[in-house]
């Protein structure tokens, strides 16, 4: 009997044999095609649990994508820590919420505390409610997931990235102290998502890409806190970093994460060699230049390449970009279903 998508993904995480590799993600998966069927505006789906849950379920319902993941933006933890966000309510364009007002304005303000009652701040309760709704809706058919930011990326949300980067070089102890505190906030957030019923959690540490930070700093400054977070998670953890990652894939996996996720800049064949055949390595097609602007034929070839290179799951390098054409999404799912290495 054929496996459901849910069974396929859970088997993957538990290391059991399955009929084929899945095509899913731990990052945002909303599409404009999906929003069209619901009649929702993009700016509205970040602030309403039902709309969030409905939107996240559409990629499975319309295209058979093998997961449901929410939220869609990267501001949840920062907002709960006291930042003001902008959802661009006025805009008809696809603008993801950003941080309007940070909590740390300069180096002297870095000694912050986690607000009392943190897990009930901002949209953490809303995301939890949405997870519950999504699970009820599609949770028998697909694995449901959510994501948190990595501590360094979260630090970049609550203070000027410019300052954070310089201080990570000049005053690593001070940055380390902040990352330690943020790790606590991240663990608390992830804990709530687990209670709400997620099957896996992705830790998005994009800020620590080797395009920005040296692998040395990744290892000395960021790795210990990623490890701390992973140790506290109950469900399988996936660590995602984008951009150049070939020099840090081993560290990413050494955090204890069940799987690592990389984008199109990673040489997966090389990573596979480094990590061994059993490590879970997810990736790594370009969600914009392949899935949105490519033809179905281009999409098909890109999926085959991911599989040939040795990914454990076909998974995008970032959020699914909403304007993906329906025929491309379908071509992706068909190829992963039918192609064997």
């Amino acid at each position, binding site marked *: 009997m054929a496996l459901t998508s849910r069974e396929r993904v859970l088997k993957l995480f538990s290391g059991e044999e399955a009929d084929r590799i899945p095509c899913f993600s731990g990052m945002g998966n909303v599409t404009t095609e999906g929003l069209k069927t619901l009649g929702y505006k993009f700016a509205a789906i970040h602030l309403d649990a039902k709309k969030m849950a409905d939107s996240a379920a559409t990629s499975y319902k319309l295209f058979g994508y093998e997961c449901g993941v929410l939220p869609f933006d990267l501001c949840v933890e920062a907002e709960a820590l006291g930042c003001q966000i*902008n959802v*661009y309510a006025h*805009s008809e*364009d*696809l*603008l*993801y919420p*950003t*941080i309007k007002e940070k909590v740390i304005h300069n180096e002297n303000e870095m000694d912050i505390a986690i607000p009392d009652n943190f897990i009930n701040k901002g949209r953490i309760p809303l995301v939890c409610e949405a997870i519950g709704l999504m699970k009820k809706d599609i949770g028998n058919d697909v694995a449901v997931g959510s994501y948190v930011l990595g501590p360094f990326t979260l630090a970049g949300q609550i203070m000027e*990235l*410019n300052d954070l*980067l*310089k201080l*990570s*070089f*000049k005053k690593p102890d001070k940055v380390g102290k902040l990352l330690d505190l943020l790790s606590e906030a991240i663990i608390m957030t992830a804990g709530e998502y687990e209670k709400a019923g997620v099957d896996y959690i992705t830790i998005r540490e994009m800020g620590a890409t*080797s*395009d*920005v*930070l*040296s692998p040395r*700093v990744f290892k000395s400054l960021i790795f210990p806190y990623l490890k701390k977070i992973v140790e506290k998670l109950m469900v399988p953890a996936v660590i995602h970093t984008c*951009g150049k990652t070939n020099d840090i894939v081993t560290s990413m996996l050494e955090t204890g994460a069940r799987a690592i996720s990389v984008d199109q800049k990673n040489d997966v064949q090389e990573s596979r060699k480094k990590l061994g055949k059993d490590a879970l390595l997810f990736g790594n097609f370009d*969600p*914009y*230049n392949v899935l949105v602007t490519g033809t179905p034929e281009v999409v098909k070839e890109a999926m085959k390449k991911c599989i040939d290179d040795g990914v454990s799951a076909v998974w995008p390098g*970032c*959020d699914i*970009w909403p*304007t993906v054409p329906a025929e491309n999404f379908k071509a992706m799912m068909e190829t992963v279903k039918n192609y064997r290495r």
Partner: protein
Amino acid sequence: MLTEEKKKELLEKLKNAVIQYDEDTAKEAAQEALDVGMEANDAIFNGLVSGMQEVGRLFESQEYFVPELLMCADALYAGLDILKPHVKQLDLGIKGSVVIGTVEGDVHDIGKNIVKMMFDVAGFNVYDLGRDVPLDKFVEEQMKTDSDLVCLSAMMTTTMTGMKKVIDDLRAKNPKVKIMIGGAPVSQDIADKWGADGYAKDATNALKDAINMISALKKLKEEAEAGKIDK
């Protein structure tokens, strides 16, 4: 008395201050250069900028990463702030003005600031709109300042598409303006497709491209004016 030897020593000091991200030394060397009567222009281009070129090389070879790059930029500005009021004439042979900013929805401005720095040292008038800039603002500011060049930056795929809209609007209002785009998700292919005049892989390329573009633009203007006189 400014000997060749002293000059060389000071240029080297400026250069190394940038490479070693040493703001204090950059300030000190810049002041010393002025005190001994060195041309500010010389100190900027053969000292500070030459240091930044080396930094670019170190960045490319992955000896330096973004934190180092930012600290080097601080050192460059520390020297530039002292030297700039004394610049008599820039010998790039071209002067221009530029509107620059990161498009709406995107709050990343590090790349944009590095490119801005290159325009600053080259003596351009820079109108920096900052980050998360509403798309209409680019067109408005270009019209207001009559700038030769508009530079758009986006760090994320999710915001990159806003650049196309700005390009279309700018073209409709002012077909002659030169437009340059840059940022991690941007490629030459995208620049071509969307009709940008230039694509900046990095800050050094951005400056070179910008100078080429403005030269071309000035030439067009001159030819147009010459055409008028003939008639």
